[in-house]
């Protein structure tokens, strides 16, 4: 009996509730997407990690307290180990920055190797690394480092492997030096 009543009203009731449900779903979707977009954007603002080469740091001092990634080659003869702490300098050929790191250095960390470090600038102008990444492959050069070397005018990858790190700071940049003498930052 009630079934028959429901059947007669079925078409209209179904369509109406379907429309209402669709509204609900759309509303939820909108909320979800909006929320997610807002979340992602705020998180992006706070958590993007920029890459800087030593030259970038010398050109414009980084804002205090913000983490960034510093990359380049480990300067030859610069690695000093002091217990669990390691200090070394990262160079892109034009400039170099001192880095200190407490931790186990990666297996392929070598002088003259490309390296990317994550950390913050300390008050003394040295970079305090919380992570040091060197790859599990001897021939691998992190793309950022490659880019930094190219920008500093010290390496054209088409002409072969990177020159040894020992020579980095005595070389003159291949291109124009935009008027500034190359100095090693600290």
């Amino acid at each position, binding site marked *: 009996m009630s079934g028959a009543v429901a059947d007669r009203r079925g078409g209209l009731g*179904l369509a109406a*509730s*379907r429309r209402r*449900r669709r509204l*609900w*779903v759309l509303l*939820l*979707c909108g909320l*979800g*997407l909006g*929320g*997610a977009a807002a*979340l*992602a954007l*705020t*998180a*992006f603002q*706070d*958590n*993007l*990690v*920029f*890459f800087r080469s030593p030259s970038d740091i010398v050109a414009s001092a980084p804002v205090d307290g913000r983490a960034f*990634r510093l990359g380049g080659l480990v300067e030859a003869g610069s690695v000093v*180990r002091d*217990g*669990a702490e*390691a200090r070394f300098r990262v160079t892109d050929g034009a400039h170099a920055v001192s880095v200190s790191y*407490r*931790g*186990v*250095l990666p*297996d*392929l960390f070598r002088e003259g190797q490309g390296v990317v470090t*994550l950390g913050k600038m300390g008050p003394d102008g040295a970079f305090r690394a919380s992570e040091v990444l060197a*790859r*599990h*492959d*001897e021939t*691998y050069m*992190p*793309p*950022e480092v490659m*880019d930094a070397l190219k920008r500093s005018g010290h390496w054209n990858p088409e002409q072969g492997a990177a020159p040894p790190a020992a020579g980095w700071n005595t070389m003159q940049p291949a291109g124009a030096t935009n008027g500034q003498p190359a100095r090693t930052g600290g």
Partner: protein
Amino acid sequence: MIPELGHFALALALALSLAQAVLPLWGAQRGDARLMAAGPGLALGVLIAVGSAFGALLWCFAVNDTSVSNVVQNSHSAKPMLYKLAGAWGNHEGSMVLWVLILALCGAAVSGFGRGLPGALRARVLAVLGMIGSGFLAFILATSNPFLRVWPPAADGQGLNPVLQDPGLAFHPPLLYLGYVGTAVTFAFAIAALIEGRVDAAWGRWVRPWALASWSFLTLGIALGSWWAYYELGWGGYWFWDPVENASLLPWLAGCALLHSAIVVEKREALKTWSVLLAILAFSMSLLGTFLVRSGVLNSVHAFANDPERGVFILALLVVTVGGAFALFAWRAPSLSPTGVFAPISREGALVLNNLLLCTIAAVVLAGTLYPMFADLMLKAKISVGPPFYQATVFPLAVPLILAMAAGPLMAWKRARPWPVLQRLWWAALAALVAVLVVWLVQGKPVLPALGFGAAIWLILGALTDVAERVALFSRPRAAFARARGLPRAAWGGAVAHAGFGISLLGMAGMGLATEKLAAVRVGESVALAGYEWRLDGVRDVVGPNWAGRRATVTVTRDGAPVTVLEPEKRNFPIARQATTEAAIHTTWASDLYAVMGEEENGTATLRLHHNPLAPWIWLGAAVMALGGGLSLSDRRARVGAPARRRAAGTVEA
């Protein structure tokens, strides 16, 4: 000779695959039963051809055939046999052959198990699988031939990357690929349904086992990879939000959404269009993952070193597949019949919420993974997106997901009242709250681990409540056992999988309380961490089959009583010219004691020590999740298939 046979088998597979892509589809469009019937035979042929090619590749690695460039680059005669064989798929070319082999297996499985499928649907599914297979086989033959010869043959190989010489990693790619390729089958079902213009309960019933299998394998594969990273990379963490990890997480999220929405299609004939879209999305994510890992656009520990040509090929494949699928979707989806109705608060409603949240999480992870690439191309900025981004976005989205995860299974279909559900869950909520408070009071500051413990308890107890309700444990306890035996395996599977996620969460929350210490110690000195004394007893030389290294002996005691002896190592692989760090791990299930050796200098060794509470439960939970998937998969309904469709189709045609 064998490599040439392998190469020939691949070319043959491509030809058969192309036939599989065209003939059954043509037959289905024309209603030609003979052409449609060609599908299964061709699928079997492709399987045999690709299987032979893979066998040939294994052979080349097993006998260390140094006239094959792939073997020279990735193998060495001094390697143990397992890693020789694993080396066959531990490199780019070989892993693509494995990919296609699994796809061919799936194709054969669809033709084998799919006897109950309507002929036209099966033909179309096989055709779509054939198209995907053709694309990948063409990719292999054009850009990554694994059988390339070198002349003159090398004296010996260069060795497999030593970090990859590990049982965990030997099985990680095959499992992950089973998952990836499983999404190809659900994708094929979705495309076939769009071509037919019909999605019904039977479709849901056919898609769900594939979605489940693919999801279970992805879960296992991801867990194995994460476990490997934990013990092999020696960083002490289990998930780094590395782009390659994200690439495997994305299809997992989409697949997880799909397997839930397929339930609604099967039971209630609702969410049909959405499920089709999800199936397309899941496969798109798999392809995107393949592209990200293979093309070298990513800068990651896992990424294979590559040339851009491959990237362009996969990108083209991705654009054609995904673009074509979405165009077809836009064209055909409106013709799918309208769906069953339900109130917002109902099982369906909860599953919709689950889908929305999972997709939102996937979108956020995708944004974080792709943004650095986008910024590099468009803004010329070198940017990376680290774990803090994902923590800030994924955690808030996971909260409502976890809340709904325990409540959803207790809701009635179509229309549920929230109050009775909450009534049944109050004890779980109370226990979760107590857990949060206890952990927070004991551990203090970081509030996230405390919340994690609460969420884990909530999920595990929620799953228990679900089972208890279904077997009427409290209302009619005497019949409970009989009812438990009669409960469909799918119901068990769901509860087990949800509890498994809870167990994983428990481990992750425990890892939130992990402590570590870095110390430079002399032999005989000890370090205190997490209530344990870690004493360095000595460092000595060790020699392995293809490496030489240094091994430290660290004795761990607690209140003077010996707990374990840890022996972390640093190994040098002269052939591969690489070095690895072997972490030493002692697990008590309540926590992992984890030691890594660093540099040695003047009799002082640097040690990095970790105390990781509950760490093993992360992977155990993942195994339980996969077990839940397997249980659900073994449900009678999944095996018997869907007779309903044929009957329904018959009445329509009559």
